[in-house]
Structure formats: C-alpha cells, structure tokens
C-alpha cells in the first residue's frame, strides 16, 4: 500500500518488482515555462499551469476526464520566496492552493473529475513520486493516475528569504551546520563531495565544461524548455569558465535555473495501455535512496556507495543491467551530481573517476554516448520533469532533433541527489 515510506524500494534484496511491466506511462503534458510568475497572470500561476499540463497529458493519452481515478502530486514546489501577505484573487485563486501549489483536491474541483478514488497531495518530490505513482497503479489503488509536478518561482533571490537564513538561532540539527555558514539544500554537501572527487582523481572544475555545453545544446532542441523559449543561444567554453561564481568553484552555469512551470504524466495498467493512443512506456522498476552520511558532511565514498546500492536495487528489481540501458537521464541540478550517477550505474562502462573523460568524448545525441539527451535541467530550466519527458519521447521515437541515433528501447531517469533520490526504469517492452 502507498502510505508512509513503506512503498519505497529503498533496500537491496527485494527481488524483482512485483509489478514489473504491468504499469505503463501513456501520457505526458508540459505547460508553458517562464522564469518567474508575475503575480498577476492567473493562467501562469501554479494552478493555471497545472491545469494546462494536466489537460495536455490527458489529451496526449487519448483519455477523457472521466477515465482519471487517481490524482498524485507533491508540495515540494520550491516556492521558497515568500511575499505574503500577498494579494489574492477571485475564486478559485483565493488561497495559496492554486497560486503557489495545486493540490489533488484543487485539481479535482477545477477539472471536474468525477471518478477519482485515490488522491495524494503530499507525495515527495518528483524522483520518488514517479515511483509512488507506479506503485499505486500496480497495487490497484487506482487504474489511471494523473501525476503532476509543478516548479514555482516567485520574485526574490533564491533562498535569501528562507526564514532559516535570517534567524539568529540555529535549532535542531541546524545547530551543527548553520553556525559555520552551511546553507541548507543540496549545494554545499555536494560541492564538498565534488572537491573530494577532484582531489582523489586529479580532476578539476573545467572538466564539467563539455557536459554543460552539450546540455545547453540538447536543451535548445527541447522546444518547450526555458532556453529554447527565452534565451535561444548556445554557450561557449569561455562563457562557462568565466561564469559568475556561485560557490567556488561552482559557477552560475553549474546550477539549474529556477523556473515557473508544471509537467504532468499519466500512469495506467499495462492492460489498459494496450488500446490507448500512445505506445506504452512500461515501468520495469522503481528504486529510492533516502540515506545520509555518517557525520556532518556526507563524503565522496558515502555518495559512491549510495549510488552503487541504488544501481544494485535497480538491476535487481528490473532484471536489467548496465549494458541494457539505452537512455540515461539522471538529475543535473548541480552539474556535479551527474558524475556520481554516471559512475555508480556504470552507464557505457564509465568507472569511478572517469566521468570527466567521458564528458570530453562524444556525448551528442547523434553520437555513441548520448548522455542526458533531455538537456537536463541545465539545458531546459529547473523543471526536473524533463528527465522523464525526454525518456518517454525517446522511447516513443518522438524526440525530434533530440532523438538519439542509437537504440532507444530502455530508459533510466531520476532525481535528486546521489544519497536522496528516486529512479524509474522504463522500457518499450513489458518484459
């Protein structure tokens, strides 16, 4: 049953996933994407964008509103910037629900969904949420689930209005980090891990440049992405190396850019998927990590073991191995993440310490190693859903200029960080 964390496949030894190949993704919809919500345009509020994405996903699947019997979403929309008391609007935009998040209940009302029997508004962020959705359908909690993930970006500098950063006190676990300037979120610890990586393997920050440039290239071939829509130009290596420093050695181009958008997906049973408009993308397994390091800062070795364990869980549950994965879309929210995933899953044979050499090889979608064909979040803005959307499009063969020229029968996607994440194995074939 999908409650608490009992549904998670976060331990080794669970065997083949009991619903392997019995659940499929049959629809996807992406809303418009802006840098920020202007605070006025209701069709570009979180609720407005969520409605747009959901209706597109339902249409993409060839379903009607009455076919939807499950609603799943997350409140992890990253609307960190607070500007309350904010002006509210006429119903249904008279509360935060609809403006800075869109609950299952809100969407049920706004779309007039009559046959919903399973609602979940408190799913985790998209990585584990996609696994939760697959599990819910597999477990029979619903037959056809509408699943959406908004990312909300309001006015203000990212994180600067977070109450924790203004507080003169450091309560709870922050007492052991905040007094030394540790900033909550994924950046600091993962930067420490990156520095340890460079130290251990003799690498440096400029080794990320080829990945950054290729992500922007792929992103410019993603027509709904932020850069294709709003800043349609390629970066140069000099741009990257001279980028504004965020936290040494990370520069602005290592950080996915917060955007305002929503994506939606339709999960259903493999049986129901047979007659629908789109070629089914079967789910072969989902797996999660939700650990932390032993001490204040998780270490490189702990992250490496975390991803190695994640990979073992994924291989065990899906019945596939590293050589079977065609499309690989791990999270790149900080560009330093992806080398951990690449080396841990050993995609295309990449071993520990080899990621930067791999990036310097041919990772274009036309080439032999089309890593992160999505363009990731550095190439499309921080929407996170692109990792799944591209995987689906690649398996369908509808990725347009981003379509890889090699085999595209299986795809592995997930986010967020090496030690805390959820991944999904997808395939054109149920077994």
């Amino acid at each position, binding site marked *: 049953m999908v409650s608490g964390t009992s549904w998670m496949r976060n331990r080794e030894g669970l065997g083949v996933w009991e619903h392997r190949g019995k659940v499929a993704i049959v629809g996807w919809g992406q809303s418009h994407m802006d840098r920020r919500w202007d605070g006025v345009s209701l069709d570009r509020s979180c609720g407005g964008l969520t409605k747009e994405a959901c209706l597109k996903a339902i249409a993409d699947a060839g379903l009607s509103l009455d076919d939807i019997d499950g609603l799943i979403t997350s409140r992890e929309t990253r609307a960190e910037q607070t500007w309350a008391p904010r002006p509210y609007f006429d119903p249904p935009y008279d509360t935060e629900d609809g403006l800075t998040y869109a609950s299952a209940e809100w969407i049920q009302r706004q779309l007039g969904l009559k046959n919903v029997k399973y609602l979940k508004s408190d799913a985790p962020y998209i990585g584990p949420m996609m696994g939760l959705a697959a599990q819910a359908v597999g477990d029979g909690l619903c037959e056809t689930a509408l699943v959406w993930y908004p990312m909300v970006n309001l006015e203000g*500098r*990212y*994180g*600067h209005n*977070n109450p924790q*950063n*203004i*507080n*003169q*006190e*450091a*309560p*709870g*676990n*922050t*007492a*052991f*980090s*905040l*007094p*030394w*300037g*540790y*900033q909550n979120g994924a950046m*600091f610890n993962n*930067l*420490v891990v990156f*520095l*340890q990586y460079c*130290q251990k393997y003799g690498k440096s920050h400029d080794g990320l440049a080829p990945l950054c440039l290729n992500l922007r290239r792929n992103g410019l071939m993603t027509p709904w992405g932020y850069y294709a829509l709003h800043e349609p130009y390629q970066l140069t290596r000099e741009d990257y190396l001279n980028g504004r*420093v*965020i*936290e*040494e*050695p990370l520069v602005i181009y290592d950080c996915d850019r917060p955007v305002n958008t929503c994506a939606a997906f339709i999960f259903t049973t493999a049986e129901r998927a047979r007659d629908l408009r789109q070629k089914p993308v079967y789910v072969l397994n989902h797996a999660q990590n939700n650990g932390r390091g*032993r*001490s*204040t*800062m998780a*270490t490189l070795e702990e992250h490496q073991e975390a991803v190695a364990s994640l990979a073992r869980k994924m291989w065990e549950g899906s019945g596939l191995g590293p050589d079977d994965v065609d499309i690989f879309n791990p999270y790149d929210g900080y560009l330093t993440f992806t080398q951990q995933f690449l080396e841990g899953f050993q995609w295309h044979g990449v071993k520990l310490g080899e990621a930067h050499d791999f990036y310097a090889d041919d990772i274009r979608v036309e080439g032999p190693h089309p890593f992160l064909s999505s363009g990731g979040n550095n190439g499309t803005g921080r929407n996170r859903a692109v990792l799944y959307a591209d995987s689906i499009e690649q398996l369908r063969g509808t990725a347009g200029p981003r379509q890889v020229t090699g085999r595209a029968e299986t795809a592995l996607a997930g986010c967020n960080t090496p030690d805390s994440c959820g991944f999904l194995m997808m395939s054109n074939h149920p077994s």
Partner: protein
Amino acid sequence: MSTIPGLQRPAPVSNELTKPFWDACNERRLVLQNCASCDRLLYPPAPRCDKCGSADNLEWKEVQGKGHIDVYMVIRDSRIRGFRSAQPINFAVITLDEDPGINFLSNLPGTPPGEVPVGAPVELIFEETSNGQLVHEWQVVT
C-alpha cells in the same frame, strides 16, 4: 564574538538530545556520543547508534580535538544573514584524527580566505555566538 571580523554566527539551540554537547562546549570541552557496544563515535548527536541501531549504549566521550583539513571552499555570497558581513570567508571540512569518519565544519579563524593548507593539522578552539553559547572551531596548527 567570533574572531573573524563581521561574523555573527547563528547561536545553536540545544534540546534534550544535544544539551550535554553544548554544555560541554561552554566548558571548552568537545564531547561526542560513543556507542559502547560498537565502540563507534557519533556526530552530530543522534538518538541511536547508526551502526547497531541501539539507543541503550550511548555515552558521552571527550575527544582530543586534533584534526586535519579535508577540503575547503570560500563563501562569497552567503544566503545566511550573519555571514554576509564576513565575506569572503573560509568553509572547511575537518576530519577528526581519532576517527576520520567523523567530520566537522570550520571557518578556520586566523587563516586568510582562500589560503587554506589542505591536509594541514588543526586544533580545537572555541568561539562565541550571538547569545554567548560557545561553538567548537578549528585553527591551523602553526
């Protein structure tokens, strides 16, 4: 206050679990939890041992306060208000000599920003925070 000009560290707030740790800091002692059955140090404090899972064998143990600098970076644009007037400022990870699996954060008072000798030995000191609570810090051994 901190010996680093402009720095206003947020003050740790103790709770039932962490009070012995912070009280010891105010006595200029660094004490860590130790699982007696695993002979394993824990830091930050935790309700149970991360190895055996037991809460029954945890005791407080004073450690020597010797460590080494693992990695560092320089904070130049902190989101934390108390750090903005102290920028640029070092942010280092210190491993404990008695158990390098235990690590601490440090701003390395006395070491100019960006001039951090990675791998160098450090020793324990204490610095005052905004409400007078002492916190453990580390400085390069000269």
